[in-house]
Every structure is written in structure tokens, then in C-alpha cells.
């Protein structure tokens, strides 16, 4: 058998399956992982035991029979519960320890549920959840949930006996689907006439956008939660692009866009290409619009609650945070000392300044030359980009505080800083400005909250497009928006009130731009990666998403930005951060490491690390 090469968790999961199956001559069609990417030992064992005790191809064929049905994910979850019981009973006499492993898995079920976000819970089928809870409650000796008579019958039916052979088991599985869902896999497939063509079946999968709502959940906030939250992709890949209804939802939730419709379109034409095709962008300052949308209002309330929590946490730790800020500012001062440029001043000798040379003959002013002055200022500016996806749920307060520390430290060194948070929802990647270059008040960073997905690549590219203001035109220096566009002339185009006074263009022009991203290096979005050629779209997650983010970083670096990451995630994502940012990242576990870590990263970037 020619084996595929697997690495990390996938290889571990396969090994658990092979070990339980007692053979290594097949490529496991099923694998189980927890939300944080770690293999689910018990359910991988169950998958292996299915291969050991039952005819795996027949079981696989059964699962494929209903694959195109919209309830397929529910059927999977329920039938695996049934299979679990069957192979457990078969294996137990040979492996007495299985009982303890099963019990441990039951406990893990409750731990996992405790860490689920509301969004994850929203994705969870209540029917499946009840059945799982019933099963694991019985095993772990907890009180079983109250169930309706139908649910109780379902739970009983899912206790597939260990005495069943493959054919009998398949009959039981068919009967189960028929009794409880009036669904006959074989017949339904024929009826639809799509037969066994997996391509057609896959194309016919569809998931509506309506489920992709932003739900903000309060995490522990301290960043001390042992488990990372990773949103689970539901089984089918969403293929429909964002609609106007989605745009309205985004506006209701995040506030009006700083860019006009036309500006957004041009930006999207430039950026939403390749793997991000079909995605949309939204740039906002969080200026709320009138809405009656219940979801939007709920999000606003949650965000306000989180802001209060951030502020409270900030107050409680004010001394520590100020200390960290001073330490980082001091370190940055040392790092920056070699980077300060003397501000030129007018003088009677030096380099002639052509635009004012007329003053010499006309008004007899001989100070028409520029010379290196006494004052100094750094010729650089910093963009801070905060990953505000659901995965940061357990670190919201800490991340807001860290962003404040970094922002204030640069500010103390007279370096313009701008802060955005980003998240993705319903195919929109939303950049929300918390603080722009000209602003002095950094407390706005405490508006940070986590919720939604994160399409890192697109967010990075979009931010790179944002020059001194939030106008695409001001990015002309990076050179990809065509001069023939509506935003052709620098300083012209939209000069509407939304932008006036937001950032002085002098704050960025000619300066070296640094982009620091506070990230967990786990890009993950509900909108799939665009399909290449005839291939089907792939989920924006895992290795594919990391590669997309890596490509985005490569592009913005080639445009002159110096990009570095402040990594605040799981060890399992260390490979990702390394792949996306190369050497230019620093891992921070607690605020006390911030001064050392960020200054070191900044020094690395200053030395030219792109």
C-alpha cells in the first residue's frame, strides 16, 4: 500500500484508527478531532473498531448514500452514536480499558460543551445534542436530560447492539432513518436522479447564509483558558456569494462603511480575486445606523457589555498595564534611537527649496534653504491589526489591554499608530477602525470584542490598501489602483466629511509602514476558498487558509510593508504562524512578556525583515 504523507494531528488520528483496527492497509475515511484540532482519541478508536469489526466499505457506502441530503451532518452524528455503542459492545471483552476511555470521553463532552461559543451552539443540532447528552450523561453518571417520548425512542434505537453484523447493522441504520426522518437513503438518491455521481451531489449541496450570524459570547477574557476556540465548519461548503441582504446585515451590525459603494467595489475588484473571489469588504469606524434588526441589536448590546468588561479589567490592572507600557516604550525608544531623522528646517544655507525660492527676490527673505534641524522624528508609522474572530473569545480583555499597551508605547515615542480589528461574516471581511493616526485617545481600543470568523489574508491586504486615511486612493503609493480610477489623483477624489481630519496625509507619506498583527494564526472563514478550474471550492480553513494568508503577507511585503505577528495562540498553530510570517513573529503568553517580545519583533522588522 502506498501511504500518503500526513503530519501532526492528522497522522496521529490515523495512527489511533489503524491501531484500533489492528491493520494499516487502508486510508481511514473518517477521523475525529476536537474543536482545538487535537485528535479525539475515543472516537478515532471507534472509527478504527468499525474497520475491525464491520465491513468498512459497506458502512462508508451507506454514509455516502445520503451525503447530498441537507440533514447529512445530523445523520452522521446520530449514526456514529449508534456505531459507537455497537463496536463498544463488541470490543469491550477484548479491551476492558475501553470502559474507562468511554467514560473519559463522556467527561470530555461536558468540558467541550462548556467551551463552545454561542455560535458553535447555534450550529449544533439540538436533536443531536440531546442524543449525545443522553448517551454521555448515562456513561458519566450524570443526570440524564429530560426527553420527549420521540427522543427517548430515538435514544433507545441508537443503542445498536454489539451482536449485529454489518448487514444487520445497515438494516438497523436504514430503519432508524426511516422511522425518525422518513428517509430512505437508497430510494431518495434514485428519486433525485443524481445517482452515485459525487460531483453532482457535491454541487447540489447548499447552505443558506441565514445561519451565519454574529453572536458575541463572553469568554473568560483572561486568556488563561486551556482550550482554544475554533469555529466548526458545518459539513457543507457555502457556495453562495454575499447578497445585498447580507450587506444590510453587516451595515446594521458594524455601522456604515467609511468607503462609498463605488470605492468598495474598486477595492474589492483589486483584492477579492483568486482564492478570495466572491468575498466582500467593509471598512467602518463603528458608527451605528438606525436598525430594527434583532440580531444586530443583540450584537451591539453584547459588544457594549464586552466593552464594559474590558474597561473594568483595565481599571483593575491599571498599574500593571501602565508598567508594561512604560517598559515597552523604553525598549522601543532604544530600538528607535538609530532610526530618528532630523526634521529639516528653513535656513539661509543648505538645500534650496524651489517652491519658496521666489521669496528671495520678492520679499528679500533669504531663508529659502533647508538644513538638518535640531528636532528629530521617526520616519515610520505603525498599523496594529487585531484578530477579532470568535477564536479570541477567551482573551478579549487581555487582547484589548495588550493593544492599548502597544499603541501607547509607540505613541510615547511619537510614532503614529492606527488600530483596526478585523473579522469575517457572511462573506464580508470587516475592518473596524478603533483608532486612526491622528487620534490621541487610545481608550477606544477597549471597544474590542471577539466574534465571527477571520479571513486573515484578505484583511491584511485590505489594511495594506488603506493609506493615511481610509481611502483607497491614498494608497496610490503602493501602486496598484489604476490612475484612471475614480481615485486617481492623490489628495483628490473623496474628501467627504467622513475622512476630513481623520488622518493627516503627512502622517504616512514617505514613511516606512509597519504592520503588527495580533493573531492566533488560525485563519478560518465560513466563505470558502474560490474554486480553481473545475475543482470544487474548499473550506477556508487549515492548511489552505494558512497558505492564502501566507500569500497575502508575501504580497504586502513586496509592496514595502514590514509585517510582523504578535502570536497569542495555541502551540498547535505555531507551524502556521511560522509559515505565514516566517521569522517575523513573537509569541506572547502573558502581558509581562509584551515589552521584551514586541520590541524584539520591532527591531527585527526595523532591520529590514519583510
Amino acid at each position, binding site marked *: 500500500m502506498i501511504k500518503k504523507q500526513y503530519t501532526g494531528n492528522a497522522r496521529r488520528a490515523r*495512527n489511533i484508527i*489503524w491501531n484500533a483496527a489492528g*491493520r*494499516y492497509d487502508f486510508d481511514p475515511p473518517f477521523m475525529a478531532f476536537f474543536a482545538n484540532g487535537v485528535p479525539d*482519541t475515543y472516537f478515532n478508536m471507534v472509527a478504527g473498531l468499525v474497520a475491525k469489526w464491520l465491513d468498512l466499505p459497506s458502512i462508508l457506502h451507506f454514509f455516502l448514500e445520503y451525503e447530498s441530503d441537507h440533514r447529512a451532518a445530523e445523520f452522521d452524528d446520530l449514526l456514529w452514536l449508534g456505531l459507537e455503542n455497537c463496536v463498544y459492545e463488541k470490543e469491550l471483552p477484548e*479491551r476492558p480499558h475501553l470502559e474507562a476511555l468511554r467514560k473519559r470521553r463522556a467527561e470530555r463532552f461536558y468540558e467541550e460543551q462548556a467551551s463552545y461559543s454561542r455560535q458553535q451552539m447555534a450550529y449544533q443540532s439540538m436533536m443531536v445534542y440531546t442524543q449525545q447528552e443522553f448517551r454521555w450523561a448515562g456513561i458519566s453518571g450524570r443526570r440524564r436530560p429530560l426527553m420527549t417520548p420521540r427522543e427517548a425512542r430515538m435514544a433507545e434505537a441508537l443503542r445498536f447492539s454489539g451482536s449485529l453484523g454489518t448487514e444487520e447493522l445497515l438494516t438497523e441504520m436504514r430503519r432508524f432513518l426511516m422511522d425518525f426522518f422518513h428517509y430512505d437513503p437508497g430510494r431518495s438518491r434514485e428519486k433525485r436522479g443524481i445517482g452515485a455521481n459525487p460531483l453532482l451531489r457535491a454541487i447540489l449541496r447548499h447552505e443558506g447564509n441565514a445561519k451565519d450570524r454574529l453572536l458575541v459570547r463572553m469568554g473568560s477574557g483572561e486568556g488563561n483558558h486551556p482550550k482554544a476556540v475554533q469555529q466548526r465548519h458545518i459539513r457543507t461548503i457555502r457556495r453562495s456569494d454575499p447578497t445585498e441582504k447580507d450587506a444590510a446585515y453587516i451595515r446594521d451590525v458594524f455601522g456604515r462603511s467609511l468607503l462609498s459603494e463605488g470605492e468598495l467595489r474598486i477595492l474589492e475588484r483589486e483584492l477579492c480575486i483568486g482564492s478570495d473571489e466572491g468575498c466582500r469588504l467593509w471598512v467602518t469606524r463603528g458608527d451605528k445606523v438606525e436598525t430594527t434588526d434583532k440580531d444586530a441589536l443583540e450584537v451591539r448590546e453584547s459588544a457594549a457589555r464586552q466593552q464594559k468588561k474590558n474597561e473594568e479589567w483595565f481599571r483593575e490592572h491599571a498599574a500593571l498595564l501602565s508598567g508594561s507600557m512604560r517598559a515597552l516604550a523604553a525598549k522601543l525608544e532604544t530600538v528607535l534611537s538609530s532610526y530618528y531623522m532630523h526634521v529639516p528646517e528653513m535656513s539661509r544655507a543648505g538645500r534650496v527649496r524651489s517652491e519658496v525660492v521666489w521669496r528671495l527676490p520678492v520679499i528679500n527673505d533669504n531663508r529659502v534653504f533647508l538644513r538638518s534641524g535640531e528636532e528629530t522624528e521617526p520616519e515610520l508609522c505603525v498599523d496594529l491589526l487585531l484578530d477579532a474572530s470568535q477564536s479570541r473569545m477567551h482573551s478579549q480583555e487581555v487582547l484589548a489591554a495588550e493593544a492599548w499597551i502597544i499603541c501607547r508605547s509607540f505613541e510615547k515615542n511619537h510614532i503614529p499608530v492606527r488600530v483596526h480589528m478585523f473579522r469575517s461574516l457572511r462573506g464580508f471581511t470587516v475592518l473596524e477602525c478603533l483608532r486612526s493616526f491622528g487620534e490621541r485617545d487610545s481608550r477606544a481600543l477597549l471597544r474590542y470584542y471577539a466574534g465571527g470568523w477571520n479571513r486573515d489574508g484578505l484583511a491584511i491586504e485590505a489594511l495594506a490598501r488603506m493609506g493615511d486615511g481610509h481611502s483607497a486612493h491614498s494608497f496610490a503609493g503602493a501602486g496598484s489602483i489604476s490612475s484612471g480610477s475614480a481615485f486617481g489623483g492623490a489628495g483628490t477624489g473623496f474628501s467627504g466629511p467622513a475622512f476630513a481630519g481623520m488622518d493627516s496625509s503627512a502622517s504616512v507619506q514617505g514613511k516606512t509602514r509597519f504592520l503588527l498583527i495580533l493573531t492566533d494564526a488560525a485563519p478560518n472563514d465560513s466563505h470558502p476558498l474560490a474554486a480553481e478550474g473545475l475543482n470544487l471550492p474548499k473550506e477556508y480553513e487549515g492548511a489552505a487558509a494558512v497558505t492564502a494568508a501566507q500569500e497575502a503577507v508575501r504580497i504586502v511585503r513586496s509592496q514595502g510593508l514590514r509585517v510582523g505577528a504578535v502570536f497569542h495562540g495555541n502551540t498547535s498553530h505555531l507551524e502556521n504562524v511560522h509559515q505565514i510570517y516566517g521569522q517575523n513573529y513573537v509569541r506572547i503568553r502573558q502581558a509581562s512578556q509584551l515589552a521584551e517580545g514586541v520590541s524584539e519583533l520591532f527591531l527585527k522588522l526595523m532591520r529590514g525583515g519583510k
Partner: protein
Amino acid sequence: MAELSAFLKEEGISPALLQKVEEFRKQYPVQADCASRVPDPEYLYYGRKTWELAIAAILSGNHLLLAGPKATGKNVLCENLSALFGRPLWNMSFHVGTDAASLVGTDTFDGQAGSFRPGPVWLCAKKGGFGILDEINMAKNEALAVLHAALDFRRVLDVPGYDRTELRSETRFIATMNYGYAGTRDLNEALASRFVVLNMPVIAEEDLGKLISRRYPSIRPKLRDQFVKLYTELERKAESAEISDSAVDLRGLLDALSLMAQGLSSGDALEMGIVNKSFDNYERGLIRDVISARIPSDLTSELVFEA
């Protein structure tokens, strides 16, 4: 010997072969000065067919080459054969620096003149013993050329400038080799042709169970079976090249059991005996997964062994 014979009868070894072994022993009594060299084995080799093949090879006057992977019981069988035939044992561990002198003997100074100090091969030949050439393929082939005349039909050792001796009829050499170990090389064809080769099978589950029971008579049978299955699973994983064979260590498993008997928890004992044999962190994780799927980590001595 009586115990070993009884064990072999129990194992179902052909009575005719055992009868011939008995005759061999009577024909070649062990010399008094080397009686202490006849081993009293701690472990017994399990595997009826292998026993019969090895006994037949020895009885027919052949030298034996035991080839097989790690932990297949090559050295245990050597010791067992020596004990069964009642022969004194000379054990020679081969390494890259092994040379003719270290095998046959070397010149030495006795205070007045140079004299020959016999090496293990020479003594084995003179005393009618069994010489174990352990890991024979670790040595350079040139060093082994000295054995050619001793191992073929000539059965003679000629030391230039000293003496020439014939091998006693009961003398046998049993070599062991493992193809997989680092540092091993292919055996010289001329040397290999002087042995009959016995490929050592991997120990069967049933035999491993017996081995453990014999070593630890008080082990609870249900748990013993789990340890046996654990070993088999690790072996299968190594065969499939998912892990190296460093953790497939029978000695390690037995050592872990003895650590448990000393009071260590099963988790700690298996960690020391098996998991830590691998020096790759990721591989250790895979090995731990296999163990945790089979053996609880908190088993105490009382749970593993009966009082």
C-alpha cells in the same frame, strides 16, 4: 535441565528429538573445570517449531545462525540450547573492533617468555562448548576469516607459531544477527555458507503470554493478555513504519512489569520501559496513544499482581 526438558515436553517438542538430545548429553559429558559455564537460563524460549529446527541443526553437527529482528529471543534460544545440550557456553559480543586475536587468542608474556593466551573460540573448541557469536554482522568480515576453517568440514583452528587444534565433536557455534541495527553489515557469503540459518519468528501472542506468566507467575491473566496485545500492537505499528522499532522492546516490557512489581504505577513503568526508548517526541506521542488505548495509567502493583 530436568525443568527445561519438562518444559519442552510441555511445549510439544518431538520426543524423538528430545531422546537424541538425551543421548548427546550422555555421549558428551561436560568437563568438570567448565561445568560452571553451563547456563541455568532465567528465560525460556517459546516456539515449538523453532526449538525443533534448532535442536535438529545442532544434532546434525551444524553451526547455527539465528537471524531475526530485535526481541525475537535469539540470545534466549542460544542460552536455552546450551543448557539443553549441557554444554559450557562462551559468549562473544561482536563489534566493529573485533579481530582474530580477540577471538582465537593472543600472545602474552608469562614473566620469562612469550606464550599463547587462548581466546574464547579456542577454549570453546578445546572444551567442547557452545560459542555464541553475538551480533556477528557487527564485525568486519576480515576479522571473521579466521573462523572459516573452524566452521567448515575441517573443524580445525590453526594459530601460526603456536598450535593447531581440532574442534571437539560436540563443539558448536551459534551466531546471531539482526539486519536492521545501525552498524550492521551484510554477512560475508563464505561465512554465511558455513551456518544453517534459522529465521527467528516474532514471538507469538500465546508464547509471549506464557513467557510473562513464567517470569511473573502472580500477574493477573486478564492484564497479562492486555500487555501481550499492547506489545503486538506496537510491533504492528513498527512493521507499518509508523514508528521505529525502538519501542518494540520485549525486554522493555518485561522491565516495565518488574518496575510495576516494585510499586511504580503502570503509566510510569511503561513510560520508562517502552515510551522513553524512543527519542523522538512525536513518536513518543504515538506510542503513548497505543498504550493509553489498552492499559490504564494508574494501575498499581496490587492491581497487576495477585497477592
